[in-house]
C-alpha cells in the first residue's frame, strides 16, 4: 500500500495494518520534522509533490521490493503540506517471515523515496526560506 496524504500519519495504525500471524519480523521507519538543519533552527517544512508520478514511482518501488525480497506486506506513506517540528513526514514499513528481509526492504523503501520520488521540501527557517537539497543544486 502506498499513499501520499495531506492528513497526519499514524505510524502505529500502519504497523497494525501490516502485522499478521505469519509475520515474524516487521520493520518500521518513521521520518519526522527535525528542529534544525545545518545549524539553522527550523520553524516548519512545506512539502509539495508531483502527485501522479510520485504515486506511480512508489507503486513501482513496492513491486521491486516484492520481487527482491520475500515480504508479506509493504507500506509507504508520505505526508505533504505544511508540517511542524516533530510531525511525521514519512513512514515505510515492511513485514516478513524473518527480520533480515524486513530490515533490508524497509531501508530500500525509504532510500528510494528519498532519492527518486518527486517530493520537495521547502524549509521555513528562523532566518530565511530555502528548498531542501539546495546545497546540491547549481
Amino acid at each position, binding site marked *: 500500500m502506498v499513499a501520499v496524504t495531506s492528513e497526519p500519519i499514524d505510524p502505529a495504525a500502519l504497523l497494525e495494518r501490516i502485522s499478521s500471524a505469519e509475520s515474524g519480523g516487521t520493520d518500521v521507519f518513521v*521520518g519526522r520534522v527535525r528542529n534544525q538543519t545545518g545549524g539553522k533552527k527550523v520553524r516548519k517544512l512545506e*512539502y*509539495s*509533490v*508531483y502527485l*501522479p*508520478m510520485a504515486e*506511480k514511482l512508489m507503486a513501482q518501488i513496492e513491486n521491486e521490493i516484492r520481487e527482491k525480497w520475500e515480504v508479506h506486506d509493504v507500506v509507504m506513506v*508520505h505526508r505533504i503540506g505544511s508540517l511542524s517540528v516533530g510531525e511525521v*513526514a*514519512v513512514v515505510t514499513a515492511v513485514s516478513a517471515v524473518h527480520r533480515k528481509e524486513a530490515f533490508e526492504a524497509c531501508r530500500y523503501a*525509504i532510500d528510494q*523515496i*528519498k*532519492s*527518486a*520520488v*518527486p*517530493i*520537495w*521540501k*521547502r524549509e521555513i527557517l528562523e532566518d530565511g526560506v530555502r*528548498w*531542501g*537539497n*539546495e546545497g*546540491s*543544486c*547549481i
Partner: protein
Amino acid sequence: MIRVGVKFFGPLRDVVGSDEMDLSVSPPYTGESAFEALSSLYPKIGMWKSSLRLAVNLEYVDFSSVVHEGDELCFVPPVSGG
C-alpha cells in the same frame, strides 16, 4: 514544431511563477530541445541544467529521448522528500 505540456515544481516553479505551461519544441524534438526552448524563455533555468532530471509522461528518461506532441514533461529538480 510540436507542443508539449511542462510541469514545474520546487525551485523551478519559483523561477517560472506557474505550475504548468504549453511549450513549442523545435526539431530534433528531444528532451534537450525542449529544455533549450524553455531556457530561452526563462534564462535563469539554464544554470539548473546539471541538477535536473527529465520525466516524460511520469517516467524518468534521458534528455536525449524523443518527445512527442502532447507529452507531459517535467524537469525534476533534486528531490528532497523524507
